[in-house]
């Protein structure tokens, strides 16, 4: 902003022969400025438009028909029952939380370890090769991940754990964990890279080993950046739909072990919305589930954002 304000007075005082050119240039600049500003603000517009659409579709259900206590604390999801419709999302919420939780148990050590290795323990072509490969991992479509869950992981889990069925929390967690790793790696690596070299040099000069440096100096210094990386990974895992739809077994229940099948909030919306009469209670209830999901990911992203902000303010 300050740079641009400096440019305009200069143009105004430029010699007469350059004047027209400069004015045309500044007009073009204004258009470009406006375009860039508009695209910057468009994100806000889209977020609010989407939230408004989801919330307004769900509002009639939320404010007039929904029993808040039932919606949040009952595991009974019976949207198509003829005798007794019930819209409890607890089991779906438990499904999302359990799969995401397991995914993070897998993805956080793997992602942060990988970020540390790429940032501190390797260089040159190995580093570049690893970074490109991890970015490729992020480019695999989620339906392909889901297919791997269905065709590869399912028989493997039955074989290894003697489970009755391989479509469960474990399967979905592993798949989602692997999907979250690239985000954690790339943001985590940036955070480690941002630690000034003087920190490393000082630590090494004091006789610390590279591992001691990483553990006692780099991780604390990059702490908030690494936490943001993890939370963005969580956001990715909560919002993922297709892979969990295929890998978790799609059963409405609160899991008691990683080998139980579950159903997530996202999978419920994906599976049921297409066949629901627009405007019906069921339709609106699915949008209410969407609002719940939105609040959940919004909370996670906001937390990530506040942490990053906390870091830059320091």
């Amino acid at each position, binding site marked *: 902003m300050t740079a641009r304000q400096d440019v305009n007075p200069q143009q105004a005082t430029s010699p007469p022969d350059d004047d027209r050119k400069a004015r045309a240039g500044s007009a073009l600049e204004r258009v470009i400025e406006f375009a860039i500003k508009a695209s910057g603000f468009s994100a806000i517009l889209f977020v609010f438009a989407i939230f408004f659409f989801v919330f307004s579709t769900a509002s009639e259900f939320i404010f007039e028909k929904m029993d808040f206590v039932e919606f949040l604390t009952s*595991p009974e999801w019976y*949207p198509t029952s*003829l*005798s007794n419709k019930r819209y409890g999302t607890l089991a779906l919420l438990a499904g999302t939380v359990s799969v995401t939780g397991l995914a993070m148990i897998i993805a956080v050590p793997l992602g942060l370890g990988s970020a540390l290795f790429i940032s501190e323990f390797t260089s040159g072509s190995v580093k570049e090769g690893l970074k490109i490969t991890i970015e490729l991992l992020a480019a695999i479509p989620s339906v392909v991940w889901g297919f791997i869950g269905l065709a590869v992981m399912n028989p493997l889990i039955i074989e290894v754990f003697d*489970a*009755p*069925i391989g*479509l469960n929390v474990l399967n979905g967690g592993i798949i989602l964990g692997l999907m979250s790793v690239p985000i954690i790696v790339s943001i985590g690596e940036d955070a480690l890279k941002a630690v000034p070299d003087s920190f490393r040099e000082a630590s090494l000069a004091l006789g610390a080993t590279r591992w001691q440096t990483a553990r006692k100096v780099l991780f604390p210094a990059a702490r908030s950046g690494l936490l943001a990386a993890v939370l963005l990974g969580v956001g990715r895992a909560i919002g993922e739909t297709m892979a969990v739809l295929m890998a978790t077994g799609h*059963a409405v229940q609160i899991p008691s072990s990683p080998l139980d099948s579950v159903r997530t909030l996202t999978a419920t919306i994906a599976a049921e919305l297409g066949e629901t009469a627009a405007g019906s209670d069921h339709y609106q209830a699915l949008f209410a589930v969407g609002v719940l999901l939105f609040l959940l990911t919004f909370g996670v992203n906001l937390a990530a954002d506040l942490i990053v902000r906390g870091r830059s303010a320091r």
Partner: protein
Amino acid sequence: MTIIVPGKRRYLLCAGLIVLAACSSSNSDRTVLQNKGSDTLVNVAQAWAENYSRVKTDVAVVVSGGGSGTGIAALINGKVDIANASREMKPEEHESMKKNGLIAAVQHTVARDAIVVFVHKDNPAAQLSVQQLACVYGEGGKCSTWTDLGIEVPGCAKQEIIRISRQSNSGTYVFFRETVLGKTGDFKLGSRDMQGSKDVVDLVTHTPCAIGYSGMGYANEKLKSVCVSANDGGACVTPNAETAASGVYPIARGLYMYTIGEAEGAAKDYLDWILSPAGQAIVTQSGFIPVN
């Protein structure tokens, strides 16, 4: 679209207007039959309409879904010529026809639908009753292990019954709920709800503990179709085309088309064709059971 366009130009105009579906309506000597109703029947109804358009080029059948109730309501309001239904008309629907000054609706059974219950091929279950199925699948049912049913399944850890079901938007799901769990029944939570019948069959084939259900078209020799009895201890009926067509098999239903009074003219020709071998072959292809 009553503009008169001579000669070859018309085809060009038609090509241009095809998006607006103007061509069929400009063809005034063509009879249009409106056909609406059951989502269970919508695929087979569409296949009938498509094939019939080749048999009789001057009749166009317009098919839409929406559910049995929607179709019957449209028939009562005079919006359609033929209503599709996967259930019989209710007395109150007959009443409201009378109120609208219409003659009684006539029911034509055009196909039958049966649900086969599958278990893994190593499962020794010889027969299950509808009550036992309700105990396994129904909300409040206490049967959670194969031992509860007096069956021991080899290769099944803890003898836990893995219930495979369908997603709630499936017609098969609704039909199973109605016939097995009763009009007001609901499924027990925790069943694995599959997207399609093929997924159910695949999963049951590979899971010793599993039980699943699907339309009859999906049965194969890699899994075991259970013999079902209507009552505990009663004689069981093996699901096949004959037992389903005759109605002896307990989890079967008729699929109907309704007309106002006896079908006449184009509608009668269409229904006759549906019940002919050509029409009934489409029923078999769609995974239902032919009636003739």
